[in-house]
């Protein structure tokens, strides 16, 4: 680690890796600082990602793909099952990744491209001059050093502190944090090619419970519930244990993963003078699905591209860096977040009877393109009155 870089990236997840790789490919010097001693661990993720989304950034590689999905299943509160499959014959619609290996691959690529990487290196404070971010104080295995940078890209995840230290309020509202737990289980009977989502206020209040296959008899079995609904005796772990005891009594848990996922709107502004926020730290998780891998890679790459432009022009002010904020909001990702936020807000207010009714209306969907948008469109097609309930949003869904 040197004392000065063009771009200092805080966090070695998918957002940080793409940011660093992109920065060096643009001819900048860059360093990733990761507070943990290893990239990729511990995993805080259900590890699912759509095929189209993944391949936009990287060609699928069996070394970090646990399983390939051909469909998805939604289980209504009353147990009714809705099957989603791809119209494409034998179509792969998505993957369940092995994030430990995947994240490492992404950081490896950044390093091979020329980025420096420092693990067990925690950003302990920003370096600020006249309100402008100029780098960070890095605690590297107990030794404090100052690293100056033209631009700091904060990719420090759900537990992000860096932006807060710089004066940006990143607090997630209690009702919009998904309080989650996941077990990596083996020895369980599952459909190894389909993800399963369980909905309902008894199963997972204002969230969902998932089974994402990792192999023929293994899966990520997890749950996210609204922080508002969490409390002593009815926490995410309580709900998950209840499900696991009933459904997979003989399954073996080989990994125990708690975690939080934000399902709020993205931060009002994701840049400041000399600072850019990406991925979970920018709260750009999809509020409907809780998926964040693609959004992290997308914002990480875009942030570095903008940083390169701005550094090239000698202006890293908030005003200049706003090009990044505007670009991701105008992107397909930004629009999807906006739309899915409204759909999420609608769905969490529905009683189980209403969810049953909606899911019963479509038992099987063959989708040309496997997206939540197409799922919602299909549901609306058979439930025309939903158009009224969804209000202004409905127009954008037709």
């Amino acid at each position: 680690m040197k004392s000065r870089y063009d771009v200092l990236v805080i966090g070695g997840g998918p957002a940080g890796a793409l940011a660093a790789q992109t920065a060096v490919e643009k001819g900048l010097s860059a360093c990733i600082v990761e507070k943990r001693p290893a990239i990729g661990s511990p995993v805080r993720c259900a590890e699912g990602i759509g095929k189209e989304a993944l391949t936009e950034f990287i060609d699928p590689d069996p070394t970090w793909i646990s399983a390939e999905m051909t469909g998805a299943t939604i289980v209504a509160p009353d147990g009714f099952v809705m099957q989603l499959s791809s119209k494409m014959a034998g179509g792969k619609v998505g993957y369940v990744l092995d994030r430990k290996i995947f994240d490492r691959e992404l950081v490896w690529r950044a390093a091979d491209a020329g980025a420096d990487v420092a693990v067990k290196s925690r950003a302990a404070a920003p370096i600020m001059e006249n309100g402008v971010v100029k780098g960070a104080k890095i605690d590297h295995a107990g030794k404090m050093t100052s690293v100056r940078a033209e631009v700091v890209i904060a990719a420090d995840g759900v537990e992000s502190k860096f932006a807060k230290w710089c004066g940006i309020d990143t607090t997630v509202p209690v009702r919009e944090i998904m309080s989650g737990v996941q077990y990596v289980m083996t020895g369980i009977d599952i459909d190894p090619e389909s993800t399963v989502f369980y909905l309902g206020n008894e199963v997972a209040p204002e969230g969902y419970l998932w089974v994402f296959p990792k192999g023929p008899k293994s899966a990520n079995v997890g749950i996210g519930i609204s922080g508002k609904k969490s409390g002593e005796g009815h926490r995410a772990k309580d709900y998950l244990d209840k499900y696991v005891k009933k459904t997979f009594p003989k399954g073996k848990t080989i990994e125990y993963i708690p975690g939080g996922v934000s399902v709020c709107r993205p931060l009002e502004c994701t840049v400041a003078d000399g600072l850019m926020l990406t991925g979970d730290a920018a709260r750009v998780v999809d509020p409907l699905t809780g998926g964040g891998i693609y959004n992290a890679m997308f914002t990480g790459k875009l942030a570095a591209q903008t940083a390169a432009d701005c550094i090239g022009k000698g202006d890293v002010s908030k005003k200049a860096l706003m090009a990044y904020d505007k670009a991701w909001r105008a992107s397909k990702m930004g629009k999807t977040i906006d739309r899915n936020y409204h759909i999420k807000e609608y769905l969490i207010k529905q009683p189980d009877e209403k969810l049953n009714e909606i899911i019963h209306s479509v038992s099987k969907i063959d989708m040309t393109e496997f997206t939540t948008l197409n799922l919602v469109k299909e549901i609306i097609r058979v439930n025309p009155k939903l158009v009224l309930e969804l209000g202004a949003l409905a127009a954008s869904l037709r």
Partner: protein
Amino acid sequence: MLKVHRDICGYCGCCVSVCKEGALELIDAYLSVEENCTSCGVCAKVCPLGALEVVHEKQV
């Protein structure tokens, strides 16, 4: 004051994200609680495992 049951804590950082004061920080596998904690209990509520507890100190 906020008590961290370290045997239960899975150091995931869910609590850090909801703390308005910025009083919590996840330092690798250690959750640190700063002095500006107001014992509001929001973190204890959202903890997926139940590792946080607001304990009221006995008056001496």
